[in-house]
């Protein structure tokens, strides 16, 4: 830790001290701290630990001494804190061991709170805060084009290349990469479906990636017509390539044989489809060797850059905007690059999960706080139960400070087993998250449970234990309480009538807030599940087909293949419908382009462009199809209801003309079909233009079959495999139920929902434990009073009601506070909500009922016991 950080930390810790004291002493304390810290810089680890321990002890001691009502003089020193310490530790250990039930319950409670906080803080640290796994990764930025109308565009290759070549004063390097796509890679005569990407010169150098074996692309290879070279991922090298030596290792991509020159390490991560941060493509080829890199309006490249040392993002933005303006003047080609968006790469990678993770951390802290309050209540109850012992200690001259220390040590001793259990729970939970949330959380593979995480856990545990200990310590060691013990002996002190309800109020309010959050997320999830996607994914299998590029170089052969495969599938009785599409519904990479009616100054909207066959709509279950099949097959286009509504104001567009920028010609509208929700459930419907694939054979290298079946999924899968194999056995396919993709679109929501409801449930259980403990203790304390009242003829129901009210009144107050706070919570959560109001009466009612019910159950058990006592037994005891 550098001195400035250490100083900042110490300064933050000084907040433990009362404000007046701090105002007076802070400069001097900082001076002493600085001087002390300067001495341990470069010293041994032991020296550093010793320094921090002593500093913390000193601070806590001073804080207690300055805040405590018994403050008398400076008659405390660090040494008094350690005097008789071993005795207190031994005593605390004994108390814990002799009461295994009490210890287990409290350590367990704390462990649950700890586990939640550890998981959340490890995720926040590794996913949000830790730098990306590249050298000096804070210099890495992602670039996009910004057009004058505010549109943000993935850069085109020519623009990105100009930035790389002309912005040397801003960037140390600019990397350009393709979005990876699945292609057929030929290896030893077999076709494999492999994700392939292209890297322009300087991509890996910019990122600072070093090859595991071999080398990166040479300048020669990344030139038009350069020697064909490829770099593969470690997984591909160890898997299909069986880790063979790189010399004379070749793979065929398209019609070219590439020599493999290097292997990228398995730890390398890069941008994938959309904003995903994933395992990158298995095969990389040099981008600039190819000639089909598009015009300045052909968007769709990932562009990352490394800022020069000392260059700020703001300055880079200014210089790049100037460069964009200059380029626009010099090059008279249409382009959207009126300005350049520069954003730190890390910021971009984690943007999607920043809010959810932040909420996760807050929720876990709420759970921890509830657990702390449980522990505080428990220690307090135990302390009040031991008033006789405490009064003897005070009578024998134990100072309040010693009492405070005794209680703190007891809390800390509880923290030790709690840390062990909490860590185990956290490791388990992280393993589950790693298995479940791979699609949701980027950088999940970087989440490691290392020594730092362990140290953090211990730190949080000790902090929580001290927090839980300080409250009862403050009450039990308070002047008023000790005086009462001193004067009137053990029987007198019942104590802290105000603190108890406050504990229940806080616990109930916090757990109800968590429930409200979980409820809102649940309603959003249900709304997202029930949203009408515009197609029917049930009982449909999506088959990805990539045709080997050499064997199917001839477009007519591709058309023939698809036609024959479709024909065979439709002939199978297990298949009720089959169709072909270039882009699946709901696919995140669905590309959209400006679409407009073929008339001057027509309004344009973004719409997807799909090559399909006319059986697609039945296979996908898209309703409201009105098409003129003959016109469609003759090269006409189908538009969806969204386009009809926006471009034709709902009128029938049939026979009119439409243009989409993906298509090189103006199309005649041959019909209208229902709209489909692209991207995911949250998105609004975008427009779509459908064109018969027969009319565009050149673009059909990779297509998807949608197969709707009637029998079992296995039978359908078998039928599909047979149909493809009998058409052409060398075509590799991959298939998955279409429903899986729909479900994947809900993964983010499900992840957040599971965690939120888990935390809500845990908090509710912990709060119930707290209410139970407090009410049970209250009842036990007042057993004698109850017995007298029962003996005097009071009906048991009044005793029961009295005991119940001890728990329920504060719970009701807690619920009211939570109701008010949930207005704020709903607003703050708004970005995560979908089709549900920030203040949802149903959610609030359910959460309130759950909270009150939990408190009721927790209070009812001890209340029943109170009403059932036999007065004679109790009164005889005294």
């Amino acid at each position, binding site marked *: 830790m550098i001195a400035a950080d250490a100083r900042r930390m110490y300064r933050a810790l000084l907040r433990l001290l009362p404000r007046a004291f701090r105002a007076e002493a802070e*400069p001097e304390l900082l*001076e*002493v*701290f600085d001087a*002390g810290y300067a001495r341990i810089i470069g010293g041994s680890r032991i020296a550093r630990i010793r320094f921090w321990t002593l500093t913390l002890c*000193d601070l806590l*001691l001073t804080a207690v001494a300055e805040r405590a009502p018994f403050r008398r003089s*400076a008659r405390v*020193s660090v040494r008094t804190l350690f005097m008789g310490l071993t005795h207190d530790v031994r005593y605390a250990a004994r108390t814990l061991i002799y009461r295994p039930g009490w210890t287990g319950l409290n350590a367990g409670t704390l462990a649950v709170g700890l586990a939640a906080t550890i998981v959340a803080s490890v995720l926040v640290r590794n996913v949000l805060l830790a730098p990306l796994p590249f050298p000096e990764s804070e210099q890495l930025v992602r670039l996009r084009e910004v057009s004058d109308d505010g549109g943000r565009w993935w850069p085109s290759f020519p623009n990105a290349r100009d930035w790389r070549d002309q912005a040397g004063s801003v960037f140390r390097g600019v990397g350009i990469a393709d979005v990876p796509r699945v292609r057929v890679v030929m290896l030893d005569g077999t076709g494999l479906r492999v994700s392939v990407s292209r890297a322009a010169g300087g991509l890996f150098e910019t990122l600072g990636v070093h090859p595991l074996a071999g080398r990166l692309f040479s300048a020669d290879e990344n030139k038009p017509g350069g020697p064909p070279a490829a770099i593969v991922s470690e997984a591909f090298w160890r898997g299909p390539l069986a880790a063979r030596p790189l010399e004379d290792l070749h793979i065929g991509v398209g019609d070219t044989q590439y020599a493999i020159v290097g292997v990228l390490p398995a730890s390398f991560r890069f941008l994938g489809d959309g904003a995903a941060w994933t395992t990158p493509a298995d095969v990389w080829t040099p981008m600039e060797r190819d000639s089909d890199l598009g015009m300045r309006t052909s968007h769709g490249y990932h562009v990352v850059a490394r800022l020069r040392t000392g260059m700020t993002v703001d300055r880079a933005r200014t210089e790049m905007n100037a460069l964009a303006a200059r380029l626009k003047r010099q090059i008279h080609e249409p382009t959207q690059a009126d300005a350049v968006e520069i954003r730190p790469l890390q910021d971009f990678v984690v943007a999607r999960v920043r809010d959810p993770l932040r909420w996760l951390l807050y929720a876990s802290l709420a759970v921890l706080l509830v657990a702390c309050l449980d522990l505080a209540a428990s220690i307090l109850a135990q302390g009040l139960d031991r008033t006789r012992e405490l009064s003897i200690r005070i009578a024998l001259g134990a100072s309040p400070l010693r009492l405070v220390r005794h209680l703190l040590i007891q809390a800390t001793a509880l923290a030790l087993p709690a840390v062990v259990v909490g860590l185990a729970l956290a490791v388990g939970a992280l393993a589950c998250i790693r298995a479940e949330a791979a699609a949701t959380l980027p950088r999940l593979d970087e989440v490691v449970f290392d020594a730092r995480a362990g140290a953090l856990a211990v730190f949080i545990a000790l902090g929580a234990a001290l927090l839980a200990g300080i409250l009862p310590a403050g009450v039990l060691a308070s002047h008023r309480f000790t005086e009462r013990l001193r004067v009137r002996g053990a029987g007198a002190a019942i104590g802290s009538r105000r603190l108890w309800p406050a504990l229940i109020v806080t616990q109930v309010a916090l757990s109800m807030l968590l429930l409200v959050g979980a409820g809102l997320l649940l309603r959003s999830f249900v709304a997202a599940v029930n949203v009408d996607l515009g197609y029917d994914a049930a009982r449909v299998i999506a088959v990805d087909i990539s045709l080997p590029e050499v064997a199917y170089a001839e477009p007519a052969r591709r058309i023939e293949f698809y036609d024959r495969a479709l024909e065979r599938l439709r002939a199978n009785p297990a298949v009720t419908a089959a169709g072909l599409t270039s882009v699946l519904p709901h696919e995140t990479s669905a590309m959209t382009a400006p679409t407009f009616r073929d008339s001057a100054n027509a309004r344009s909207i973004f719409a997807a462009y799909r090559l399909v066959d006319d059986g697609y709509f039945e296979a996908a279950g898209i309703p409201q199809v009105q098409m003129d099949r003959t016109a469609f097959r003759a090269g006409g286009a189908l538009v969806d209801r969204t386009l009809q509504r926006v471009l034709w104001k709902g009128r029938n567009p049939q026979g009119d003309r439409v243009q989409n920028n993906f298509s090189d010609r103006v199309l005649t509208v041959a019909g209208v079909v229902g709209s489909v929700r692209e991207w995911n459930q949250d998105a609004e419907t975008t427009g779509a233009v459908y064109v018969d694939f027969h009319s565009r054979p050149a673009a059909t290298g990779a297509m998807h079959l949608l197969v709707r079946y009637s029998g079992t999924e296995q039978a359908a899968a078998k039928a599909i495999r047979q149909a493809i194999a009998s058409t052409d056995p060398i075509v590799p396919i991959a298939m998955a139920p279409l429903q899986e993709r729909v479900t994947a679109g809900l993964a983010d929501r499900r992840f957040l929902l599971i965690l939120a409801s888990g935390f809500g449930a845990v908090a509710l259980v912990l709060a119930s434990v707290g209410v139970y403990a407090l009410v049970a203790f209250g009842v036990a304390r007042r057993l004698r009073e109850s017995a007298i009242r029962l003996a005097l003829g009071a009906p048991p129901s009044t005793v029961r009601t009295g005991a119940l009210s001890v728990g329920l009144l504060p719970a009701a107050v807690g619920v009211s506070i939570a109701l008010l706070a949930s207005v704020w919570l709903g607003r703050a959560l708004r970005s995560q909500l979908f089709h549900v109001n920030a203040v949802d009466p149903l959610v609030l009612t359910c959460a309130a009922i759950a909270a009150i019910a939990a408190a009721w159950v927790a209070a009812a058990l001890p209340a029943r016991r109170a009403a059932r006592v036999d007065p004679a037994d109790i009164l005889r005891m005294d």
Partner: protein
Amino acid sequence: MQSSHRESRLHLPLRPSAFAVLAALAERPLPGIDILDAVNATVPGTPLLGPGTLYRLLRELRQQQLITRVDTAAADERQAHHELTPAGRATLRAEAARLRRTLDLADGRSRTGPR
């Protein structure tokens, strides 16, 4: 001198930590960190004082007018130094004498001896 001597008696006997602080300041004014070092050097093992407890002690000694804060003229050092007041010096001397007598007593060299 006589009156300050009498006043200084009010604070006797001094606590070991307070005595150590006054002793540390006997020779010349010191900044907090040096006092801390000097005091903690008097006991082996666990230090007697931390910065917080030292500050509280200094405040108490200041309130008893045994020490006072002085600003040094050193150019780049904003450090506040602490200095013994005449009363502080007298208290220190008185406490030292008291301790010496106690030591003598322990060694059996008391001039008066137990009656």
